[in-house]
């Protein structure tokens, strides 16, 4: 496995913020909201986080892998995408759709 990209497996992410807080380069930003789900047979509705946005700024990321290590839900993983290039900084910020693991889109 090449260590050339960090992929987000969206379905596994619980918006717990651990990766955002541990990233030494401060390059992950996420936003989420909560919805109430009522499961059959449950007395009270359950609160569930829903991920609205998840961005990694690859102009700052130093590929240290701390985020992958700290994620308790294995929602982040090394991936084989190529390293990115761009002529402007905005293009280096990748969001959920661009962060999918290779072979999954």
């Amino acid at each position, binding site marked *: 496995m090449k260590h050339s990209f960090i992929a987000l497996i969206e379905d596994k992410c619980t*918006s717990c*913020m651990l990766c*955002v*807080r*541990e*990233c030494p380069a*401060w*390059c*992950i*930003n*996420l*936003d*989420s*909201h*909560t919805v109430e789900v009522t499961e059959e047979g449950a007395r009270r509705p359950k*609160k569930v*986080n829903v991920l609205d946005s998840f961005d990694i700024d690859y102009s700052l990321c130093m590929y240290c892998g701390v985020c992958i290590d700290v994620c308790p839900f294995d929602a982040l993983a090394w991936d084989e995408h190529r390293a990115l290039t761009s002529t402007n900084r905005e293009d280096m910020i990748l969001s959920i759709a661009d962060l999918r693991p290779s072979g999954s889109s």
Partner: protein
Amino acid sequence: MNRVFTWQQVAPDQWRNKISELIDSGFFYFDFLTGVDRENIDGQADCEVVAHLAKPDLSDSRIIFTQVKSELASIADLAPASSWYERECAEMYGITFTGGDTSPLLRHEGLGRPPLRKSAVLAARVLTPWPGGAEPEIREDGRKVGNVSRRRQRPPGVPENWLSP
């Protein structure tokens, strides 16, 4: 090949003796020297200086360290390869290696705290909002979800009051 690493602490006044003894007993491959900021060890020392010497076939390694306040005798005459590392260590940790080469490597003089000391404030960390400070647990209407009280208020590794001038 099995590599053996042995750590040993020496008193600062034994630093040169120890290095010279090791070189004489076959550990003459000088690998590196660096500093570690330990912030006020017993109110005496602030930093550790660590050096790695090995036998030339790398079968046996010694990692020697000592605790210093701000000065240590240079070993550049015993192991010339250490000179570069001592200059780097001087710039990054503010340690003076007496008797060594004191010319600067990268930094201009008067740039403030040596950058690898924990007390050095990185201006970018003060000016940039920390993304971890966002509070997804607190909703727009003020409702709290999740365990808000356990939420970490500061970026990891950043001392208290560090971000306030």
